[in-house]
């Protein structure tokens, strides 16, 4: 595992030197962070409002009509994948070894699978619902899971900096893969 992580950190940090140069410039990191937060709001706004409708809020809005907001949520997600990758490529050690980041990815994968389930199972039935109708039970579950997962993604993202592993003196890519076994050996 350590070998893979060292390789991954090395690959990420050499992948796009232009990105790292921008991110290390005076305003690079704060600008990318601001965009990441704006993307987060778009994502939770569009997808969260849709989830709330599935859960029974604003029943008089036809679900199909509200679904037109979703591409904007995906746009927010795209902004965040791009800016998120920029963080990852600039400081891979801070993320590749960070449990908060691992959980964040896990919750994102769960949210993705959940969305896939939505289009595979209740979506077709929903398209035929008259305005004012409650969403079927499967869709309500999807809405609840989606909201929970995205809120968990936000919390994990915000907590990332508090689980940042501390350098142990080794340098170069993958320094923590050297540090962690050393730290564990001491316990």
């Amino acid at each position, binding site marked *: 595992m350590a070998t893979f992580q060292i390789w991954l950190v090395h690959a990420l940090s050499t992948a796009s030197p232009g990105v790292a140069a921008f991110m290390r410039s005076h305003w690079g990191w704060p600008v990318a962070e601001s965009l990441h937060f704006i993307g987060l709001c*778009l994502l939770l706004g569009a997808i969260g409002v849709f989830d709330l409708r599935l859960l029974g*809020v604003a029943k008089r809005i036809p679900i199909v*009509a509200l679904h037109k907001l979703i591409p*904007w949520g995906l746009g927010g997600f795209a902004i965040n994948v791009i800016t998120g990758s920029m963080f990852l490529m600039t400081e891979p050690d801070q993320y590749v070894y960070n449990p908060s980041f691992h959980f964040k990815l896990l919750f994102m994968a769960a949210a993705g699978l959940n969305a896939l389930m939505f289009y595979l199972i209740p979506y077709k039935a929903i398209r035929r619902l008259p305005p004012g109708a409650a969403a079927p039970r499967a869709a309500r579950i999807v809405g609840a899971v989606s909201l929970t997962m995205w*809120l968990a993604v936000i919390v994990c993202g915000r907590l990332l900096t508090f689980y940042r592993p501390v350098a142990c003196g080794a340098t170069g890519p993958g320094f923590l893969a050297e540090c962690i076994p050393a730290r564990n050996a001491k316990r």
Partner: protein
Amino acid sequence: MLDSYFLWLEATRFSAWVREDPSIFVFPAVLAAHTIGMALVVGVGAALDLRILGVAPHVPIVEMKRFFPAMWMGLWLNVASGLVLLVAYPTKALTNPVFYVKLTLIAVALRILKSVRRRMVLVAGAHPAPMPARLRLLAVASLACWAGAITAGRLLAYTYTRLMADR
């Protein structure tokens, strides 16, 4: 003059507790709550603005008000968590002009929201209803203010000149 007040506030047990307790359920949790609140306020606000600007035209706009409670929840969560953060680091925030820019942008965005709420009732009826130019302008201004407030908020971590009153 303000420094003596900052010194007193930073020395209170509550301020020191929020700042120094190593638990993930204290300072990091307050930050996480502040982020969730932001996502709720700006998220629902942006969804409303997008609707006004023509996204999802078949959504009856008046019905969007049903999502407002989520927004108020986020707003109160952020007033509370924001006050806690302010008590933890009063010097850091209040000596930074960017903090006042953030507060001003939030105030303007909320004022715009009030205006939008009053006007959106008037376009009730047939949908997709054409949106008055004035309402669309307000929606654009609202999006700009929220984006600005978020950016100013994020920049607080980079632009402060003094962290605490005694250093």
